[in-house]
């Protein structure tokens, strides 16, 4: 059984926040939606879990008791302790008694908060808060785990730990759907969807998206920005030629995933 959206559109008044987006979240996989601010990532997740009504299309999701969801803004109660937050989650999903004791201990060990059960949520660091939020969403072993920018504002070490936690959930059969603004995190996914202005502009495995890059990409080693669609990568410029003909003095290069994302956006702008 897979979950996801089929040609889903969401309109707020005259503004289209999501435009015929199709997306699949399969069990035991991690699907990531990449997009800039305002691309429609949060709306997509909210439409999937039923917080936003669809104007057209369909959303396929398990019952609420099988969903774990963390919005971008929160995930826990800052005025409850670590233990109390988990207990609330356990109560909500009917994980009680021995099962709760075992599961909460296991998760607290894994996120490194076993010795901080009595600390208030608000006293935890940003990374710790997000890890606790993910643990709360995972407590009932959901069939679908939906995470809105779980790593935004989190330090690199905590980000890595968070992804380890999320991947472990997928390994036990949970379908994970997460959004991120960090392109570098997309390689962790089985499927990536690039979202721009509410539209899906590319979807597939990271290697498929890289492989589908149109035109040619080159490196320009100069201080000045070259003419044409180009962007900075380290000390050099990347120059994309939609026609496949690179100007003289440009060194051809195989695009990586970050390049592929930028080119997909540029190609979409030109096509649109």
């Amino acid at each position, binding site marked *: 059984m897979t979950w996801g959206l089929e040609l889903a559109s969401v309109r707020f008044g005259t503004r289209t926040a999501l435009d015929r987006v199709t997306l699949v979240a399969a069990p035991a996989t991690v699907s990531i939606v990449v997009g800039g601010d305002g691309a429609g990532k949060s709306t997509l997740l909210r439409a999937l879990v039923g917080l936003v009504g669809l104007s057209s299309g369909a959303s396929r999701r398990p019952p609420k008791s099988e969903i774990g969801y963390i919005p971008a803004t929160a995930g826990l109660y800052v005025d409850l302790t670590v233990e109390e937050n988990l207990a609330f989650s356990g109560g909500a*999903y009917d994980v009680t008694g021995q099962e709760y004791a075992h599961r909460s201990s296991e998760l607290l060990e894994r996120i490194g908060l076993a010795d901080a059960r009595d600390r208030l949520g608000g006293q935890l660091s940003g990374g710790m808060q997000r890890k606790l939020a993910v643990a709360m969403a995972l407590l009932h072993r959901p069939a679908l785990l939906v995470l809105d920018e779980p790593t935004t504002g989190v330090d690199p070490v905590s980000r890595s730990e968070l992804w380890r936690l999320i991947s472990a959930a997928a390994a036990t059969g949970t379908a994970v759907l997460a959004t991120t603004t960090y392109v570098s995190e997309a390689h962790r996914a089985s499927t990536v969807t690039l979202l721009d202005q509410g539209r899906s502009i590319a979807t597939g495995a990271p290697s498929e998206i890289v492989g589908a890059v149109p035109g040619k990409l080159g490196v320009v080693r100069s201080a000045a920005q070259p003419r044409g669609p180009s962007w900075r990568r380290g000390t050099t410029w990347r120059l994309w030629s939609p026609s496949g003909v690179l100007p003289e003095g440009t060194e051809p290069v195989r695009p990586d995933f970050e390049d592929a994302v930028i080119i997909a956006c540029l190609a979409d702008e030109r096509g649109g």
Partner: protein
Amino acid sequence: MWPMIVKEFRQLKRDRRTLAMLVALPVLLLVVFGYAARFEVSNIAVEVVGPQAEQVAGLLRAPFQVVDVDPPAGESFVVSRLRDGDAAVGLVTGQRPFLVLVDGTQLFAAQAAESALARMTVTGKAGGSLAPAVAVRILFNPKLKTSWIMIPGLTGLILVFIGTLITSLGIVRERQAGTIEQLAVMPFRPWDVIFGKIAPYLLLASLDLLVIVVVGKALFGVPFVGNVAIFALGALLFLLVTLGMGVLISTVSQNQGQAIQLAIMFVVPQVLLSGLIFPISSMAAGVRWIAYVLPLSWYIDIGRGVMLKATPITALVEPLGVLAGMAVVVLGLAMLRFRQDLAPSVRGGRAITTAPAAVPS
């Protein structure tokens, strides 16, 4: 400084509710104090009984307004009419001196009646036939103590504050923190969330109510002569209305500031126009209807009636019924609004909910 002033004006322009309150509140206060906030009572409802009832009723002049003349009835009938709130003053004829019974819970009406009777007995303006042959007896609040009539009203005010202000803040806090979205995705029904949120406040408000009644009795000697169950029923219905208002306010507020503003707009008219301070009977007829759409007005009827007069439930059917109706309407609206917040209807698309093939282990 100039950029700061410009910034403030721009922010204020977008904060329509604050602007509305800044404009509406002074107008409201003007209307309230101009038309409604009066201590002087110009109409005192009088029940006249006894053999000379018809004759005496014809002699009574303003501020007395005869609401019923019943020659065969006697003192006990008048007491029951006053207890039920049907009249503020009862005049028993057929004895010398005539007996004037005054409802002490209608403080300003009682004071006005006393002074009008004193004038009549001194000057004999009412034709002289009443003077000096009246004996005045004040019932339910013999010393006309302000604290006796304020405490039942204060219990209502506390319920308004806790029920409306604190409840609305509690729910808005979830919205501001973003946790309300999580609650919406958890396997809770809207009613679970609403009741879960209001249950602690329901308990706290009940405890507060108990404390005020006990402290009022201990410190001020305020009696509680009526049926506790009727009082509890009235308080519960009133609390449901105020809690419903709190939930309703929270559904239309994006932050705690907005919730406080709306709650104040709900609470202030109740303080001023419910009869808590200014008697409803003193209000100009044009604004008196406002008092009857405020739940606190009806609760005060029940509170004062039960605590001070042992008013029976048969005489409180109207306020209890109105509060029950208000509770149904307000809680119903709150539920509908809250439901929309938690589970928006699918507008044109489909939502397919399917159980997973196998729960991951």
